[in-house]
């Protein structure tokens, strides 16, 4: 016997770094969308018309090259495919990590990392559930929170006059903030951007900044509405 153990043998599916790369790229797509979406939401401060204009503009963007709503569909498909890839990679890596350590430690002081790791995975699942709810709420208008309105701005304002709706969104946005706090750092690591200790500092700062901007940017409209700052 030449060596004591033999390796476990070929693993099915892409290698872990490739999966991570998929997560990072799709994650960046999400970030792009999230930032744009946040900007759009902030239009509400410029008045209901501006907001509706923006919502409408989304549908006509790219026309006449694209049919009405064409850009929106391209975006939707991209997002959907990204989400499937992102979630599939996440679950595959999750399973691999579980298989790589079957016996747990009796005592483990890596508490913070274990929390972050769980938060990414369960937080991701929570985000997924939220998106479903959110689509039913705003996009399909299936869930009607405070009456049935056809104007997007009306839907928005009326919804956030209800405290529990605000609460759901606050929780979701905080979850998103957490996901991004580690996610941005992680994506930069995965894409090979962290090549020195100085770079690492920059990436840390950027992650915090992105997370903070997203949390504040998304929470500003609902709270403003709740406190009656927006008519």
């Amino acid at each position: 016997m030449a060596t004591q153990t033999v390796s476990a043998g070929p693993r099915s599916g892409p290698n872990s770094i490739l999966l991570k790369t998929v997560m990072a790229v799709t994650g960046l797509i999400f970030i792009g969308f999230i930032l744009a979406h946040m900007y759009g939401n902030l239009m509400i401060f410029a008045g209901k018309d501006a907001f509706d204009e923006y919502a409408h503009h989304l549908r006509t963007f790219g026309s006449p090259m694209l049919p009405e709503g064409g850009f929106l569909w391209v975006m939707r498909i991209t997002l959907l495919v990204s989400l499937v890839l992102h979630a599939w990679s996440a679950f595959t890596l999750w399973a691999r990590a579980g298989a790589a350590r079957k016996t747990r430690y009796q005592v483990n002081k890596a508490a913070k990392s274990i929390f972050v790791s769980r938060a990414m995975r369960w937080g991701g699942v929570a985000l997924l559930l939220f998106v479903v709810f959110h689509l039913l709420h705003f996009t399909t208008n299936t869930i009607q929170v405070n009456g049935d309105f056809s104007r997007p701005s009306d839907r928005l304002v009326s919804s956030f006059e209800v405290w529990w709706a605000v609460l759901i969104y606050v929780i979701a946005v905080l979850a998103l903030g957490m996901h991004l706090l580690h996610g941005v750092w992680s994506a930069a690591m995965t894409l090979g951007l962290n090549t020195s200790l100085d770079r690492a500092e920059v990436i840390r700062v950027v992650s915090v900044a992105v997370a903070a901007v997203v949390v504040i940017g998304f929470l500003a409209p609902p709270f403003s509405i709740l406190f009656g700052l927006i008519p």
Partner: protein
Amino acid sequence: MTETLIEGLYTEGEPVADAKAPKTDIVTMWQQRKFDAKLVNPANRRKLDVIIVGTGLAGASAGATLGEAGYNVKSFCYQDSPRRAHSIAAQGGINAAKNYKGDGDSAYRLFYDTVKGGDYRSRETNVYRLAEVSVDIIDQCVAQGVPFAREYGGLLDNRSFGGVQVSRTFYARGQTGQQLLIGAYQALERQIGAGTVQMFPRHEMLELIVVDGKARGIVARDMVSGEIETHLADAVVLASGGYGNVFFLSTNAMGCNVTASWRAHRKGAYFANPCYTQIHPTCIPVSGDHQSKLTLMSESLRNDGRIWVPKNRDDCEKDPREIPEEDRDYYLERIYPSFGNLVPRDIASRQAKNMCDEGRGVGPKVGDFRRGVYLDFADAISRLGEDAVRAKYGNLFDMYERITGENPYQVPMRIYPAVHYTMGGLWVDYDLESSIPGLFVAGEANFSDHGANRLGASALMQGLADGYFVLPNTIRDYLANGPYEPLAEDHPDVVAARASVEERIEKLLSINGERSVDSFHKELGHIMWEYCGMERSEEGLRKAIDLIRSLREEFWRNVRVLGAADTLNQSLEKAGRVADFLELGELMCIDALHRRESCGGHFRAESQTEDGEALRHDDEFAYVAAWEWGGDSGNPVLHKENLEYEFIELKQRSYK
């Protein structure tokens, strides 16, 4: 030559000589030998099996090179990975006569320094070759990606080391051994991946198989399953390192042992100059009875630190900062005004011991004795500033603080000598072949290049020279006559070798006495240190031989080895090693006793000048003492190899 017992301890046999070094000028000798050595047709190499025991610098480099050449190599080490051989611990650097600094260095100067440093007890031919191939080592290592220190221009940096006047030491911070070994290890792993080398980690060689007078294989124990395996081959290479652990406490790793060499010795390989050990002056002192090993601190500390002890014994317990200047004895500066704190290792070590023996040692009492002298940086700190000292020695100071819990920027360090390196080892000729045909020995395991004392940064050079450049060229001369007759596993000599290993293991497990293996090892170490350490005397050595004999007797009657043979059993592993140390220790004392001169690391109390310095006797002792095993109840046989100095003139060393 005589049959009668000399000193009541040994007999003398025929002299030996190295027959392989070509009779040409020393400068062309190695070229000539490489040319004379027969070649093996590439197609035949695959049919030739070579066993290599050890994956240190010597073993890993030999394994990689022979694998590249296409031989069938089987490589063994007792650690869980070949990367962990104790070569990894070397800090200081590796010498090579590159003359990159243009300071007048050359192969010839390195040769000269090494012979002189070895106190004129090494073979000129081997040392010259070592110096000659040293330059290739650096090229090879750089090509492999060994990250040596570099200057801003991108070229390699050198420093001067061990008191020589040229800068020829290449280094990688304080981790030169590690970086060189990782280079060799990666080359070895490459061959493992390519299938030319088969690796057997956690395998310990326990016996050499000799058939028809030739080394034909080994018996090894799989340390995980406990299985006893026989491995057969056309040639066997031992690169199993040094035996400093016979002293129990040393700077060697816990597992370093003499078993591979000793088993070969018992099968007929001569053991040369066993008493030559190097004691390194700057180690962290022993702190208590439970200490398991000693840690070396780089010698470079002596460049800026001043060594002292209190003048009065009563001050030994005081806080050193409260001892005024006039009550301190800077003894090295006092005794050796021109070299001061930079005297060679053996002198610095011996004087530290003398101070402690006088009762002026410092630090905690271990037993009823203080073992330590101060190495004080207060002057350097006030002269250069703390930051400059930190930049130079920061990592060493941190290591010191981690181990002792004391801050050397504020309190002087304490240091004490410790066993570090063994110049002795299996006797080999110019081809690195032992007295058993087909058994080659490389690295610290052989005796070849360092005489009675090794210069700093020369062991790494020797290990890699042997493994990369020498052995692969010389062993082919032997292999060219192969493949040797195939052996069956049930050949009587093979079966007997295997049976002897099994029997011994069974014996060790069945004694079930009162004392642990470690307690025997510690006691042996104590005897060796007291009587065969820095200073040896006839009386002490005789006493030691008696003590070792009775300890060995007790061992085989009273050792307690728990557990079973067929699992990982660390007590059993240790027991086998200690059993061999108990035999080696006696031979070391006999060798030390018979050599009535002081040379290099061997200081005989009876052979000193009027002012207490070492005195060599070239007329009587300019030879290698190659010992032949005399049997379990017999006496060892001394074979002398006369050392002839054609190129270098013998001189007494003086450092006053």
